[in-house]
């Protein structure tokens, strides 16, 4: 990795103050000009990006949203991957609740699940760091550690050639985040809160990824099939066009779907 040069940092600060020198970008672009493959991937947000907005809209009772720790580590690889995603999402909720004990427990749980799926080397340091920063109540840093753990786990899976499994981690996190988002918005409905669910391209992206593995062994896993069906069930409820109002009834229905899926993911394997 290239070392940071102090002079470059100074030049950069100067650049930020010289916006006027920057050439004006076009006011409009034709997005169809970009080849499909180049807009096919989506920057998947972490739950705390949504939670940050919820904090601005009101004072959610984050502690009430926390699940009891103690995930099962048995089950198919698909289940463990989905579970890892939900547990990391739980970490973000515990950070919002500023619950050190829960954060530390979740950090250990992430490591346990990572061991179960063979990617623990990637998260040992993260788990330790989560514990240290939770003790110090450095919440912003803990949030970054959970984000880092998510990337490390996914990176390790990709390193092992298991991109599809890595995708399940992201989906698991999204589903748990959505369960909490809809729980909070459902308790005190507002159009602004419900609008946070407007994520059509992200859902389409997850749908495409899950469709792609439909015929594989991983794709035929009962939980993956259920996940695919759940996302397909949620998709029409989040609106088709920008500005579409997402009703309180839709929020409630999405909540039920997400909750059922999270319950399946966190249940012991049959």
């Amino acid at each position, binding site marked *: *990795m*290239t*070392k*940071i040069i102090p002079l*470059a*940092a100074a*030049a*950069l*600060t*100067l*650049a*930020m103050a*010289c*916006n006027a*020198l*920057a*050439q004006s*970008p*076009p*006011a*409009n*672009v*034709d*997005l169809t000009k*970009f080849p499909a493959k*180049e*807009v*096919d*991937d*989506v*920057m*998947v*947000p*972490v739950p*705390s*990006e*949504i939670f*940050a*907005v919820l904090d*601005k809209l009101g004072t959610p009772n984050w502690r009430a949203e926390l699940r009891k720790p103690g995930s099962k580590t048995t089950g198919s690889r698909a289940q463990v991957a989905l579970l890892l995603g939900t547990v990391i999402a739980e970490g973000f909720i515990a950070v919002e609740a500023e619950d050190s004990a829960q954060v530390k427990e979740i950090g250990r749980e992430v490591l346990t699940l990572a061991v179960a799926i063979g990617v623990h080397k990637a998260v040992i340091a993260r788990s330790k760091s989560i514990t240290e920063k939770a003790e110090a109540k450095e919440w912003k840093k803990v*949030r*970054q550690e959970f*984000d*880092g753990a*998510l*990337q490390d786990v996914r*990176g390790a899976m990709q*390193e*092992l050639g298991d991109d599809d499994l890595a995708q399940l981690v992201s989906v698991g996190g999204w589903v748990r985040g959505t369960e909490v988002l809809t729980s909070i918005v459902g308790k005190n409905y507002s159009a*602004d809160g419900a*609008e*946070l*669910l*407007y*994520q*059509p*391209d*992200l859902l389409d992206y997850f749908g495409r990824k899950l469709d792609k593995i439909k015929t594989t062994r991983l794709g035929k896993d009962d939980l993956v099939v259920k996940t695919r069906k759940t996302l397909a069930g949620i998709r029409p409820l989040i609106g088709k066009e*920008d*500005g579409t109002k997402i009703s309180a009834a839709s929020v409630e229905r999405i909540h039920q779907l997400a909750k059922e899926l999270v319950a399946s993911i966190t249940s012991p394997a049959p």
Partner: protein
Amino acid sequence: MKKLLFSLLALQVALLAPLQAYVNDALSFAHEAVDPYAKKGFTVRQDAWGGDLGVKDQQALTAQLFKGNEYWFCLGTAVKNATVTLHIYDSQGKLAESESWQKGRFAGARINPTKTGTYYAIVTVEKSPQERTGWAVVYAYK
């Protein structure tokens, strides 16, 4: 879009090592560009996105953004004397950023989304002494 990976299978390494090296080098510059915002209270995502482009080539990165947050997207390249830009457009292709800046191998754009939905961060290599220019993008939110 090439999602950054910091290690690959042996065969993939053999095939992709030059691109990976570009991107890994670019990443430290992208982090350098976003660092001032971390000091202003933004949370920097640990994920990053990157690839390589020819001169005048563009790439669109699809991002799900949320109304109520403020974001900084920052771009960097390790190629000396290259000029790269980054601008943010909404799903209709309309410029949506609140401000942007550009300085050689660095660029940044800020957005306060007026609605929740899909946005596109468009990366352009305006000029470069090299045929292909590795780049990386990171973003921060608060």
